[in-house]
């Protein structure tokens, strides 16, 4: 499974981005990512989860997951509009992008 992750905005305005191929990760870590995606209900989320007006200095996330079989699914979300269940995954991907997680 391939994960394309991008976080932009925030008061710091820094862009954080990474692409993860779970086949190249240690098995335990790949498993963790798979189950985080499932628990967050990622594949059922709509394409856009936005606050109706841009809330100033929020993070903006763009996450595309391409499973081994099946179509890619992309969700763009503002951080305050992201479901609570997505937050740990978003944090993990941010740290992976910073080579810290």
């Amino acid at each position, binding site marked *: 499974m391939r994960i394309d992750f*991008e976080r*932009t*905005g*925030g*008061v*710091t*305005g*820094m*862009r954080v981005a990474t692409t993860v191929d779970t086949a190249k990760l240690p098995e335990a870590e790949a498993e963790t990512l798979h189950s985080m995606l499932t628990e967050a209900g990622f594949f059922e989320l709509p394409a856009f989860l936005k*606050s*109706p*007006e*841009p*809330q*100033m*200095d*929020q*993070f*903006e996330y*763009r996450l595309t997951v391409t499973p081994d079989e099946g179509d890619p699914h992309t969700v763009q979300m503002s*951080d*305050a509009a992201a479901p*609570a269940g997505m*937050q*740990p995954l978003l*944090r993990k991907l*941010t*740290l992976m992008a*910073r*080579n*810290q997680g």
Partner: protein
Amino acid sequence: MLQHIVENGADEQRAWALGTLHESEQFRGRRLASQEFHVLGVQTAGGQGIQRTVYDAQFGTMLPGVVVRREGDGPTGDAAVDEAFDGAGATYQLYQEVYQRDSIDGQGLPLLSTVHYGQGYDNAFWNGSQMVYGDGDEDLTPDQRLFNRFTAAVDIIGHELTHGVTQYTSRLIYRDQSGALNESISDVFGLLVKQRLLNQTAAEASWVVGEGLFTANVNGVGIRSMKAPGTAYNDPVLGKDPQPGHMSDYKQVEYDNGGVHINSGIPNHAFYVTAVTLGGNAWEKAGRIWYVTQRDRLSLRTTFQEAANHTYSVAGELYGSGSLEQQAVKTGWQAVGITVGSGDGTPTPEPQPQGCWQMMLEMFKG
């Protein structure tokens, strides 16, 4: 019922009800326009002065959280709580004492802050009704940690509160050039809060946004520099400060709402040059020109060129046509590649905001 709570409930109940009203309005696809805040009675009975409340989200994402400090309460010992409280006070004082503005809306709107928001939340934001602050990378070990808590920089507190002022005045749309102006205005007044607190002249100030946010593990002084855009940080993990300082380097990007935190470097630098050209304390003249411009001239889609033209004409009105102050404004914008008075000329005026009764009738039309 929600409106009853908003009108009669205690601060935290009002904040919750207002948040819920926000959401239900969202489902109906309608904006809760700034004037409706007054209809719903969120403001204090004017003239009471500052009204601060700080909440603790306890590392979750539900807002506003638990009340931990109210106006009149002494320090709690929780640094984030006390910094949010004091920073809101310093921001209120700048606007009240220097610009005669009573809080964000000019009518004593309560200042609500939530701290300890989220886990590993390296950010602060304004949600339309309140400020929200994370603790940075508190989930990492000290040797890995890059960000401190976001209340540690008083100019960040001023930055967030100023988004509220913008919401009640110009309402600059948060994307592309108007969004970069919106961002710049928050950086400008955030730094003016800090400079006034430290009693620094324009020449003495660092003009760096967000000093104190980075840990020692970061190669950088802050998140942005108004004095030298693009030089605030250059770090192996965080990357390099992407800000331009001149129109010729304007970044046409899709992300960050068209680069609002990036292209803000251009109007930021124009303000810096104006302020150091004038000398003295930046909040007195340069800040006054920018404040009056935001309050009276800027609107939803103002461009950089239009903002330059407006600051120039406001400077002429405040200090005289051909004055040193007006010339400093011209110099400031010239430094970033914008010539005041050129371009398409005066923009079409935006329609004036509707009166209070008109807004109420609109609300009940369904």
